[in-house]
């Protein structure tokens, strides 16, 4: 392996959002509850990989993700919504950013969302903001 270029596999990502997100549904407002983000292990080979370029101090990574609102989905299910409509939102995060001195990353980038019956890709947007 070159000491300047390192290819890597993303073997795990698990995150959650605890902040309140207000979702409107049929004239009513609901608290989304937890939003979870996890790595899509069913992504095809070659997905969930990236490159560390130490000579340029840059990292790129493509995360295949699933986003879920488990509590909101449960609420909608109790209201009689078809569970198929409540499946996770699949997304591909194309991220890149600097490799920082402590070897954290300032990764950011946009997500491409897959087709979903409720979270339609032409209206739903997601991106990761720069940070560490």
């Amino acid at each position, binding site marked *: 392996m070159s000491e300047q270029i390192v*290819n890597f596999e993303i073997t795990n990502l698990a995150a959650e959002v605890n902040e309140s997100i207000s979702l409107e549904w049929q004239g009513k407002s609901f608290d989304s509850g937890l939003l979870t983000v996890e*790595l899509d292990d069913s992504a095809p*080979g070659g997905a969930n990989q*990236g490159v560390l370029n130490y000579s340029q101090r840059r990292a790129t990574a493509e995360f295949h993700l699933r986003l879920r609102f488990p509590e909101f989905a449960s609420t909608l299910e109790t209201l009689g919504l078809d569970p198929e409509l409540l499946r996770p939102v699949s997304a591909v995060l194309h991220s890149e950013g600097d490799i920082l001195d402590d070897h954290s990353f300032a990764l950011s980038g946009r997500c491409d969302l897959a087709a979903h019956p*409720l*979270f339609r890709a032409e*209206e739903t947007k997601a991106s990761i903001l720069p*940070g560490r």
Partner: protein
Amino acid sequence: MPDVGSRSGAEIRQAVLEGKTVSWRFIPDQKRLRFTLPKMFGGRTYEVCLKGGYTFRPIVSGSAAC
């Protein structure tokens, strides 16, 4: 940030070069996710924090998972 205790950036880089798996955690109070809901759910945009992390495993020649 790296989830490796007190190791320095240089030590983490060395671990990566040796093919060792390394994990990072999101700083929990940084707004890292921007999310816009579809119109049917109100269409609002939120910037929220992520709690959790991710793990990279270097692909060493001859053991690539491609």
